[in-house]
């Protein structure tokens, strides 16, 4: 008070024009899941600092899984009595609306599956992660540590940080927050890619490539934000939408900004032609991390794309839609056609993810309620199938690690019919055969696009699906109708963690295929919220 009075007397009327800063109101219940995840990530860092090495794994696993369950519970409790139209909190920075809650739930369950794969230490003795990432590959120390059973347990807090970043990313209501969330989710992923126990060089190369290209894409994103700020004088989605609705500002700024912003987002979603990192990184990263990236990053990225396109650019959709049509077509063709000649199973799934990103983009640019709910459903379905598929990939091994070359999968059904059967089912889901979630996902997304007048795009999407079905079925044929080679891979008996992850993914893929109604209802429960009013 004395300060204020002194200011009054000294500066007089000047300060009368300045309103005092008010602390924003924070709806803690709404953002509790996010707070739990980020808080637990910090606790995980403390574990690394203070717990003895041999205790870290068990404490970290327990903490991470409990965090995910706790955040999930907080989400469910909040869902029961939150307003239908959603809330915008933290001074308008975050919107906790139905799509955000659905995406958060999806991220949490998918991360749960991925963490189970990360935590498994029985398939690969000691876990899929190296014990000292800093040792140079190929040296004597490196060969010595390959046999050592410990692992770099920082991977758990890193996972939680990335997950927290993703949750913020798909709920953020302004572009700067979105950018920070993008970095929070990306940086841990770059590190995690380099932590593979086997094939260290490939893994480190993947990490560096991902980092360099990710930095490049972030620059695009940030440049786009800057141009949009120049256009709308604000980074809030709502303000950009209002500015675009009726002004005589420079449209060059708007569309150049939009283009660069979208490029940054499409990069994260591994949509072609911004996909170039995907095969190399999917192949090099430890398989559990690949599962996490493939499932969760895609969810977060498409959550961001949906929110940005709906929130800021709905009014100008006639101008940009054609361009994104082209991008979707390019992505579907690249994914489907290049997948045909892949010889490595992880690269094949990587190209499959590029094709799927194209399908998801088809649903995302519909900008209708059905397009939104269809895309959300597709993300959930695709995520579970992918986590389970990478879980199976981690099981098929030779003495030097995973047997990812396709020729090594020949005749697998004769040796382990169950694993081959599960993988066949998952491949059929990726191809979109009925009785799997993949079919329902494609169906809802394509029918939404069709209703929004995008018939030619849907035709291309269906053709691309047909082409992509070839390389999924080729693996099935390989597993069932080829003679196994005598020095072929062995199939590890999965530990309980991997077992649970694969079972979870497979069962949900099936359940969503035969009884999708409840998830579709939930995905279509409400639209985005962009302002407090």
């Amino acid at each position, binding site marked *: 008070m004395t300060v204020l009075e002194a200011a009054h007397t000294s500066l007089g009327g000047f300060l009368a024009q300045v309103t005092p800063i008010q602390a924003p109101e924070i709806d803690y219940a709404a953002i509790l899941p996010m707070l739990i995840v980020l808080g637990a990530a910090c606790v995980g860092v403390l574990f690394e600092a203070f717990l003895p090495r041999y205790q870290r794994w068990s404490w970290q696993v327990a903490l991470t899984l409990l965090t995910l369950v706790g955040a999930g519970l907080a989400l469910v409790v909040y869902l029961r009595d939150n307003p239908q139209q959603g809330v915008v909190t933290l001074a308008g920075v975050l919107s906790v609306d139905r799509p955000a809650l659905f995406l958060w739930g999806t991220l949490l369950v998918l991360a749960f599956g991925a963490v189970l794969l990360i935590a498994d230490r029985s398939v690969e003795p000691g876990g899929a992660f190296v014990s000292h990432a800093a040792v140079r590959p190929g040296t004597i120390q490196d060969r010595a540590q390959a046999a050592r059973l410990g692992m770099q347990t920082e991977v758990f807090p890193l996972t939680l940080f990335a997950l927290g970043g993703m949750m913020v990313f798909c709920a953020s209501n302004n572009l700067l927050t979105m950018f920070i969330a993008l970095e929070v989710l990306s940086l841990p992923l770059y590190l995690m890619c380099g932590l593979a126990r086997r094939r260290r060089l490939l893994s480190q190369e993947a990490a*560096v*490539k991902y980092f*360099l*290209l990710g930095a*490049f*894409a972030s620059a*695009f994103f940030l440049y786009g934000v800057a141009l949009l700020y120049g256009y709308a004088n604000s980074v809030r989605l709502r303000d950009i939408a209002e500015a675009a609705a009726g002004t005589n500002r420079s*449209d*060059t700024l708007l*569309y*150049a900004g*939009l*283009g*660069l912003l*979208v*490029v940054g987002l499409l*990069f994260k979603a591994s949509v072609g*032609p*911004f996909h*170039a*990192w995907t*095969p*190399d990184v999917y192949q090099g990263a430890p398989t559990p991390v690949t599962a996490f990236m493939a499932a969760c990053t895609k969810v977060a990225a498409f959550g961001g794309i949906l929110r940005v396109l709906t929130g800021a650019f709905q009014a100008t959709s006639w*101008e*940009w839609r*054609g*361009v994104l049509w*082209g*991008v979707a077509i390019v992505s579907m063709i*690249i994914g489907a*056609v*290049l*997948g*045909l*000649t892949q010889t490595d199973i992880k690269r094949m799934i990587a190209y499959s993810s590029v094709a799927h990103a194209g399908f998801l983009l088809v649903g995302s640019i519909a900008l209708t309620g059905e397009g939104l709910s269809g895309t959300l459903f597709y993300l959930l379905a695709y995520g579970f199938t992918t986590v389970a598929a990478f879980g199976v990939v981690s099981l098929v091994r030779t003495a030097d690690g995973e047997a990812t070359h396709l020729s090594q999968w020949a005749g697998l059904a004769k040796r382990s019919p169950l694993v081959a059967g599960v993988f066949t089912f998952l491949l059929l889901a990726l191809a979109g055969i009925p009785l799997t979630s993949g079919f329902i996902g494609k169906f809802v997304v394509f029918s939404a696009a069709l209703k929004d007048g995008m018939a030619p795009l849907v035709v291309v999407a269906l053709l691309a699906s047909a*082409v992509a079905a*070839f390389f999924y079925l080729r693996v099935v044929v390989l597993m069932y109708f080829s003679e196994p080679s005598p020095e072929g891979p062995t199939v590890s008996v999965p530990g309980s963690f991997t077992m649970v992850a694969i079972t979870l993914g497979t069962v949900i893929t099936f359940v969503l295929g035969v009884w999708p109604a409840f998830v579709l209802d939930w995905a279509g429960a409400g639209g985005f919220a962009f302002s407090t009013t």
Partner: protein
Amino acid sequence: MTNLAAAQATLAEAAQVGAAGGVARFAWLLIALPALGAAVLLIGGKRTNAWGHLLGCATVVLSFLYGTLLFFDTTDLDPQRRVRELDVFSWIPVNALQVDFGLRLDPLSLTFVLLVTGVGALIHIYSVGYMSHDADRRKFFAYLNLFVAAMLVLVLGNSFVTLYFGWEGVGVASYLLIAFWQHRPAAATAAKKAFLMNRVGDVGLAIAIFLLFRDLGTTQYTEVFARAGELSSGTLLAITLLLLLGACGKSGQFPLQAWLPDAMEGPTPVSALIHAATMVTAGVYLVARSNPIYDLSPDGRLVVTVIGALTLLIGCVIGCAYDDIKKVLAYSTVSQIGYMILAVGLGPAGYALGIMHLLTHGFFKAGLFLGAGSVMHGMNDETDIRRFGGLFRYMPVTAVTFIIGYLAIIGFPGLSGYFSKDAIIEAAFGQEGWRGWVFGGAALLGAGLTAFYMTRLVLLTFFGEKRWEKLTSADGRAYHPHESPSVMTVPMIVLAIGSVGAGAFFALGDNLVTWLEPSLGALEASEHGVLPHALVPVLTILLVAAGVAAAWLLVGRKPVPVTRPVRVALPVRAARADLYANAINEALFARPGAWLARALVFVDNKGVDGLVNGTAALLGGGSGRMRRLQTGFVRSYALSMLGGSVLVVAALLVVRFA
């Protein structure tokens, strides 16, 4: 206006159709018993070999006894309340398509129940003896039980879908039984032929049901019949013709008659039960059951009559030329069913008469087939009547029962065929104008021809020179004709009694016509016939006598060559070639079908496969080329991203400012 009328009709119908209670509550047992028998025998496999045939007989006999109980339960009711329904379970509850598995217990269905289970039980018992040397006797009884169950579903179902279910069921049983000796190529081919030709008819029936569902939203008899008036006349005609197509397939009517004679490759009891007495009459049942639909479409009925008249003549003519005892009987079946179809085509003036002939025919034709089986049993499975002769002395019971059946079929006064066939001929002459002359004339001519070929059959088999004495059968054994065991003769005797008395029992006092009234409506006697009523029986008897005399002159008086003459007149040659029915089918359908298939295979191989393989090669090549862009160098990846970004931004700006 029409809606109101329809609603009233529904109300009236609803008042008529009561729910089945009391003893009728367990009517599903009729079907369940033989179905259970079939299931036990098929699933039990070889373990049931020892007692399988007994179980097979027992289930059908029990069904027959329960059917009799139901019959008397129904006769106790007031005639207006004799149509009852029993809901068993909800069968196909899909959105608008609601089909309940329900049974319709009315005079028509109960009549068929008694025929199917009664004749069925006799033939089961006969088969115990006939099939006693067959290793697969148990399987035979399993299939027979399956047939009885399916046939009962067909006649008892209360909707067209249930009927269709039974219809396909008897088709399967018939297929399995024709091919029972599938190691004989002829039997396997005959089964395939029967199955394929039946499919043609089944498609017609299925489309008729689709049409009913499309226009009325239901397939339940009560609702369909009550609302049949809502259908447009074109739809009505289409439905009647499609139902007729179904009936033609199942009942061996023109143009789908060619499978029935070949079906005689099956064991003789099968020919008697399925391909004479019961299954092949399903077409007559279908038309009679759908009488409210046919009543509304005189044009449809006319086609039915024409088909019937044509078929009865075709059957008679071919029957005159064959030397195979079972094939002659088979063509006689074709022709007799022609009479029934002709009768039901006459509408209210004929429905009940068709059913009456169906019942009497069931008795005498089953008896004739069992007699033929008994002859074959004693003659090393020989079927060529030119190699028989003078068998009366060696198998007297068979001969007497066979001759009773023969007298019944030619319409000897007082026997059952006389009452039922005469009534049809009279009704045919009862039509006005040219129809009376044409249909009546055809029926009359058919009666004369029937007398001719049946007399020929009897004379060549049981009388005259013993031509078999100097011959051996195909497997080199000499013939030692002997009477069959009593397990076979007793059913024949029972059927012979039916052949004698059934007609009089049904016809005198209009017993059957009155009993069927709740299902088929009152019989309309014709008033404006082209011939006086009294004249028709006289003409019939005269023509029958002429036919008998002609046969006597041709084969009774003079010796008959053992091998059949090759140089014969054109009509005989045509008749021996089934009036070229197979050739016509071959030329009109089989060969063009084969050509079409070959053309499609060509298009598939060259065109479709070429396109597919070409596309695959194109995509694979493209993939290989595009793969080279994935160099593994971050700098080229970054360049591709930059290129993409420039394109996206440029495209956005072009779209905006161009």
